[in-house]
């Protein structure tokens, strides 16, 4: 096993997924989600470890990691705060909201606060247009927001 890659427990969870798919490679996206839940992001050694498990080349793992928005290859803040900036949300002020949050946190979109607490980002349509504008905070949707409510939610994150 690669030094400093994911734990044996995670490896077992990954291997338990293999029988669900006619080809075990089908378990790759779920596997990456599992690794990321443990480690926060994937480094080259994690990709090499996955490559070994799935009998693929490390570069194929890295291709998958860099293709999908939800996978990270660099350290992240403790919390992810994403603002949807697609059309329905923008029509209802999402980008103004984003700018407000940038000012509030003192970072630009895509950056992490200096204390490592929050990574602020933007996302494409989250499927919540009826309750726009919307944030995705650590996987949970926070809907029907205004800037004040958004700040309140964010300030509550440790």
């Amino acid at each position, binding site marked *: 096993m690669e030094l400093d890659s994911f734990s044996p427990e995670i490896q077992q969870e990954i291997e338990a997924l293999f029988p*669900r*798919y*006619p*080809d075990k*490679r*089908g*378990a*790759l*996206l*779920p596997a*990456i*989600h599992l690794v990321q839940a443990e480690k926060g992001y994937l480094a080259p050694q994690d990709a090499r470890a996955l490559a070994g498990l*799935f009998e693929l080349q490390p570069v*194929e793992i890295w*291709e*998958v990691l860099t*293709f*999908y*928005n*939800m*996978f990270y290859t660099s350290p992240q803040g403790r919390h992810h705060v994403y603002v949807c*900036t*697609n*059309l*329905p949300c*923008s*029509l*209802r*002020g999402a*980008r*103004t909201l984003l*700018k407000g949050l940038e000012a509030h946190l003192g970072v630009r979109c895509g950056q992490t606060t200096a204390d490592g607490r929050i990574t602020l980002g933007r*996302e*494409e*349509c*989250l*499927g*919540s*247009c*009826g*309750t*726009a504008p919307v944030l*995705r905070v650590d*996987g*949970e*949707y926070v*809907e029907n927001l205004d800037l004040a409510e958004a700040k309140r939610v964010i300030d509550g994150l440790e």
Partner: protein
Amino acid sequence: MITQPHITNYLSEHYGNDAYSGLAGYQEHEGFEGLRKAVRMKPADVVELVKSSGLRGRGGAGFSTGLKWSFMPTENDRPKVFVCNADESEPGSFKDRLIMERGPHQVLEGILIGAWAVGASKSFIYIRGEYEFAARRLESAVSELYAEGYLGRNILGKKGFDHDIVVHRGAGAYICGEETGLLESLEGKKGQPRKKPPFPAQHGAFGLPTTVNNVETFAHVPFILARGIDWFRESGTEKSPGTTLFGVSGHIERPGLFELPLGTPLVEIIDHAGGVRGGRRLKGVIPGGVSMPVLPPTELDVPMAEESLAERGTHLGTGGIMVMDETTCMVRVACVASYFFRDESCGQCTQCREGTGWIHKICERLEAGRGSAADLGLLDDVPTLMEGQTICAFADAAAWPIQGLMRHFRSDFEAHVAERKCPFPESFEL
């Protein structure tokens, strides 16, 4: 979060009742009646029934569902697979999420009816990674079905009717909503759509014969089986029977979902949603998700069904209705849309990869007041270099919004060129 549509019909009637998302609650309202009827029929007859019902796919393409099912091979030499496309990522579209959160068993029953009809032994529900709550609801529903014998071996006592469902989460890529992009992603690769031929019914998920259907499409199927074709065809139009969950968003008084018959005039739906917010004037409406060309206020009478929308140069798509009022700068809309397509292009085909980037750069320059008349000519021309010439329809989806905006709101673009700035300071911020 939305717990039920503002207007309900057969599909969403019980969404407000939390118990409906559980098996017991579902079964109190006709749950699995459709499947019980289906397994008393010959599989081929179920396919015929769905075909005759006229049910059209609700994922954006509007293809006849029964016809799609009939493409599956009848031989049983290879296992057959269903895939439920729960990747809902079309901007303006948020109906599948509600169906999965509030009526997951409708989807699962629809899958099982389809499984019986085509002889599929396995299904994957490919759900977009961001829909974590809906995925948990589906997992829970799937567990209930295994516990009650609706999944696994010899379902409903039918020997040989075996089925397994796997809930599979995506990881954030719009292109995984494209049928073959989804299959690639399901197989653990980048979600880059495949060349066709071969088609999924011959060579689909993991090389097996596969049919891909949208969440909402599956959700209608149990009702068609339980209540019959005649009932189903009572609502909607001749060519587009049934209801759909229209999603209304943007500058609207009451955003949300409205379950209405296909063919309902757009103006009625907007009225149901309370009209333009603040009583303002309507400037434009996108009828079916951001990929579909915008309509000007003169077209509000259009019946919301594919056949009528096509006559007006646009499409039903996923019924995601985005309302834009008089303050809206259409060049900013073009910036938002073109950024989206640039970001989400998978990058394989030359025209899509480079064309989406080019269009976005031009729109941004125009909005910043640094555009010229030549740029307007480019916005006319570059979409035509992309349309109809790529591995999948993403390039068309990227071309159409620009074409729609230039067709109906060219004056917004011209004003940016003439005034060397955005002349709509009241517009939503970019």
